């Protein structure tokens, strides 16, 4: 550890010496139409042939010897701007890029220099901008961030209706989902049909599948980083839509022009309104509200405040039902400490909770409420040392408060508190990383993260007897631990390393390694994650999950204007202390949940192919993943490796967009995945009249349900741009027509076995039958109307 820091310090010191006599050019790159910061815009110093990209706040800084330069600023879908700069002292240049008006022009603009696929050191990153997301065919016409990323290589789902997503064979709980840096513990509305991210408020979505930079940590599979729009800084803008499920409205406007702006976006479902007669007293709806304000205090200081509030409500009548939702708040302060050091301080609050109530009358009721609260503080420094080194370092401090159950049962007027103890944890990490260009061919990003977790009181600490794995252990001791007392602590050193070697201007090879530690666990043994799933900390009985991932990839751009990009990446991930559960595990409202958990090893490996056509009237991508994800847990499957419930051998996606005319465009996507694994019985026997299935091979997940495939189409019809009198309309609108699952395939979600209803014939036992359940058994048409003014 000391050695590594020594190396870093040497770098910084030598870098400083080296940087002497140089000057810094920095500033922000923004969208000219609305003042939104452009993330990942390219700043190219033409004379040197090197460049930098803007960070997540649209900031860039490059250190150069004094002199005259031509600096080109470019970004996908925008006209590039070139500035001649006479650099003798540090200089700040903020640039606004104008969006290309039509799709056709977009082609021309993006045709050059969009070679990040090949030149960027980062691999295993999937990035989607909201423009692309909003063009894809979507279930019931509702554009969805999470459904869209499932179309990228290495990302999958167990089926429609399942919450979350799986990355490179990781489980749903191994993804860190961040909305403006705040962790979102349940990213779904209506179980898993829609995600909580309102597309009107989302600017940029990045999914890190591997080669994860040292500033991120806390989950072993992936980081989904969703960034919200800042709000139009130039003029009032409203976006909205009316779909079959949601109605949406987003307004954004400057508060002080070019200094402060806001966005406020809301959505609400209205099934309950439409189905009111059928629902009696029941209510069934979900909503979310997303907002953000930013304020430029001065050239060097900027603050952002953003928040999310959403809830799903299923009430059967006034007294019973259940609901769940996330609340997040993020406060960020950007400060330019000097021309080379960019500082950001983020404070985050996040809460996920659910409530369940079942009331017969005042004397007979059952209420249960569960929370996970997070307080997070993240200082982050970026030091733009010189054009060859960009150093970042910082810290991450997270306080968790798990409140698994505040519950009361009242029977005949006498109430019993059946709540569970709170649990607390402190996760703390420091990290340092450097993005270094070693030569024109070789660049690297490396870093290290030291993370720690403390499981602290006040709570009750249990010790369990040592039993054969798979059997529920008894509690052998119970200790009350005082407030703040450390019960157990863990440390992990997480090295991160990525390399890029440029073979020629069109192709490169990249490799990466990362080690990740995860201290909190999503406890769920159901096929799909459910809103009632609980998060639990690492404790004296549950160790942190640790994962190591290696990835190697080849990246190539080709075509006349390099309008095709291609990549192939192989990955191997091995993990320790993955969770599985004893048979018959009782995971809800159980004080002894640690006794229900088994721990095992995981391994996942695969190869991902990605071919994308960026430009032209016809564009889109092809993604194919060949993969395997397995677990080995003592007490399950005779202790042998078995595939995860979400393991898919083949996963193929084809996404196409076609611009037929100025007003009409089409999109289509096709998905094929291997059926997920399950367990079938071999035999039956009977106990007390119940027919029981039994697998004589003691196997887990040794067979597969049939393959999944589906084709969706959608058409977008833009409203007229001009009024009859030839004047340009102020408002823009468009209709989207969609057909989901166009050939109405009954894709299996699961196959299950049960005794059939009805009396068995004389001299025979009851019949047993296999059933296939499909979440969608038919074609789902949709229509939505969207507007902007």
């Amino acid at each position, binding site marked *: 550890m000391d050695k590594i820091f020594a190396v870093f310090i040497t770098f910084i010191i030598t870098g400083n010496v080296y940087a002497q006599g140089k000057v810094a050019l920095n500033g922000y790159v923004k969208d000219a139409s609305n003042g939104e910061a452009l993330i990942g815009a390219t700043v190219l110093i033409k004379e040197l042939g090197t460049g930098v990209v803007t960070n997540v706040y649209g900031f860039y800084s490059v250190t150069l010897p004094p002199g005259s330069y031509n600096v080109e600023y470019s970004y996908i879908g925008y006209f590039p701007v070139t500035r001649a700069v006479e650099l003798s002292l540090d200089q700040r240049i903020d640039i606004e890029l104008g969006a290309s008006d039509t799709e056709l022009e977009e082609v021309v603009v993006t045709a050059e220099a969009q070679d990040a696929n090949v030149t960027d050191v980062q691999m295993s990153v999937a990035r989607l901008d909201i423009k692309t997301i909003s063009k894809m065919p979507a279930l019931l016409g509702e554009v969805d961030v999470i459904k869209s990323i499932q179309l990228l290589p290495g990302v999958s789902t167990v089926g429609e209706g399942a919450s979350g997503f799986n990355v490179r064979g990781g489980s749903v709980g191994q993804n860190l989902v961040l909305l403006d840096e705040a962790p979102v513990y349940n990213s779904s509305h209506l179980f898993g049909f829609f995600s909580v991210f309102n597309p009107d408020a989302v600017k940029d979505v990045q999914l890190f599948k591997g080669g994860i930079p040292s500033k991120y940590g806390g989950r072993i599979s992936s980081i989904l980083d969703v960034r919200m729009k800042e709000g139009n800084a130039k003029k009032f803008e409203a976006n909205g839509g009316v779909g079959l499920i949601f109605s949406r409205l987003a307004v954004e406007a400057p508060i002080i022009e070019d200094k402060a702006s806001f966005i406020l976006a809301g959505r609400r479902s209205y099934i309950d309104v439409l189905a009111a007669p059928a629902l009696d007293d029941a209510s069934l709806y979900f909503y979310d509200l997303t907002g953000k304000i930013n304020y430029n205090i001065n050239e060097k200081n900027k603050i952002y405040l953003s928040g999310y509030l959403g809830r799903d409500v299923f009430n059967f009548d006034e007294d019973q039902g259940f609901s769940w939702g996330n609340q997040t708040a993020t406060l960020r302060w950007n400060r330019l400490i000097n021309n080379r050091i960019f500082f950001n301080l983020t404070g985050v609050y996040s809460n996920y909770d659910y409530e369940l109530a079942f009331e017969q009358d005042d004397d007979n009721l059952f209420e249960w409420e569960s929370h996970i609260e997070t307080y997070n503080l993240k200082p982050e420094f970026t030091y733009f040392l010189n054009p060859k080194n960009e150093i970042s370092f910082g810290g991450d401090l997270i306080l968790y408060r798990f409140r698994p159950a505040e519950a009361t049962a009242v029977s005949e007027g006498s109430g019993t508190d059946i709540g569970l103890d709170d649990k607390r944890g402190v996760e703390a990490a420091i990290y340092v990383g450097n993005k270094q260009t070693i030569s024109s061919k070789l660049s690297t990003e490396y870093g290290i993260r030291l993370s720690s977790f403390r499981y602290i009181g006040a709570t009750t600490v249990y010790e369990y007897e040592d039993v054969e794995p798979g059997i529920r252990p008894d509690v052998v001791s119970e200790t009350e631990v005082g407030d703040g007392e450390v019960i157990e602590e863990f440390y992990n050193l997480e090295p991160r390393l990525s390399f890029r070697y440029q073979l020629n201007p069109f192709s490169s090879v990249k490799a990466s390694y990362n080690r990740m530690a995860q201290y909190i666990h999503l406890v769920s043994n159901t096929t799909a994650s459910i809103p009632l799933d609980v998060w639990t900390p690492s404790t004296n009985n549950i160790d942190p999950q640790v994962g190591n991932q290696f990835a190697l990839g080849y990246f190539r751009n080709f075509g006349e204007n390099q309008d095709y990009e291609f990549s192939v990446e192989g990955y191997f991930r091995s993990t320790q202390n993955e969770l599985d559960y004893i048979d018959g595990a009782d995971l809800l*409202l159980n004080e002894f949940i640690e006794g229900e958990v088994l721990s095992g090893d995981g391994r996942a490996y695969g190869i991902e192919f990605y071919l994308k056509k960026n430009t032209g009237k016809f564009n889109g991508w092809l993604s194919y993943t060949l993969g395997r994800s397995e677990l080995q847990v003592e007490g399950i499957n005779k202790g042998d490796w078995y595939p995860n419930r979400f393991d898919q051998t083949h996963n193929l996606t084809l996404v196409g967009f076609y611009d037929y005319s100025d007003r009409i465009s089409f999109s289509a996507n096709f998905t094929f995945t291997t059926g997920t694994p399950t367990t*079938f019985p071999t035999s039956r026997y009977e106990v007390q*009249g119940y027919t*029981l299935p039994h*697998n004589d091979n003691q196997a887990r997940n040794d067979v597969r349900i049939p393959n999944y495939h589906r084709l969706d189409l959608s058409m977008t019809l833009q409203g007229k741009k001009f009024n009859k009198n030839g004047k340009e309309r102020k408002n823009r609108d468009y209709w989207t027509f969609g057909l989901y699952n166009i050939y109405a395939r009954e894709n299996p979600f699961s196959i299950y076995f049960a005794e059939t209803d009805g009396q068995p014939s004389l001299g025979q036992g009851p019949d047993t039958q*296999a059933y296939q359940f499909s*979440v*969608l058994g038919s074609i789902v048409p949709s229509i939505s109307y969207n507007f902007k003014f």
Partner: protein
Amino acid sequence: MRAIILSLLAMVVLACESEIDVDLDESIPTLSVDAFINNMNQEQRIILYFSQPYFENNIYEPAAGASVVVTDITQGIDFTFEEKQDEPGTYSWLPPSENETFGSIGSSYSLSIEYDNVIYSASSAMNRAPTIDSIRFIEAIGPQADDDDYQAEFFALDFEGEGDTYWIKAYKNGDFLDEPAEINLAYDAGTSSGAAIDGDFFIVPVKLGINPDDTDESYVFGDNVGVEIHSITNDTFDYMTELAIQTDNEGGFSQLFAAPPSNLRTNIIASDSEMRVLGHFSVSAVSSQEQVFTQDVLRLD
């Protein structure tokens, strides 16, 4: 609860379910033991047979010619279960007189089966079962309930002291409610050890867990409702919990939230570790009560 949520959800989306044919791996016929005995004044049966391929609905192949003995370890009494002449594989013990019942509360029991030169053994205990105070009726609640639907509820006080476990069986006009969804288990007055409610009246949903799962079958005036509380060991509580999970496949959206299929763990051990065995041995004390549904027992708020 879950079923209610999901039935609401089902209105929203277009799910579908179909019967399918699947090929299963070869089945190994395995000795299975169905040994749930109690202290009711009736014939006690232990059934030995062989498991069969999952889709076969033949009468199970009996395991005849075994010797079956249950021992009250506490009091040192052997109960020999004799194979019935007309029902091979069924081993029975009959109370010697009308006033006598099997075993006594507080005793530990062992089961010993000798079959084909292998000894199969298991243990259990007869724990206390609380008396049922009354069974009453209320207007049904919940989203699927119509105005004139009624539900039965029973009142009984769990014993003081944590760790009493029960299987509560209900009968409608003498017919046992035998659907997997109707399995009603209690841990003390609540539903699980991790959220203990001790020494109290059974809570919702336990006390309401004596109603038919299918609301079309709800109790109507004149129905006779029978309730039996079977004391079970914690081990049997776990077994029955898992049995309910593995057999209660209602399909539909509950499939999204289904636990992975897995084998039930038997509490029977073979002297020859090569020999496999399935099933469970349980001893219960039973308290019961019956009530005919009339206006007199309807609780009005």
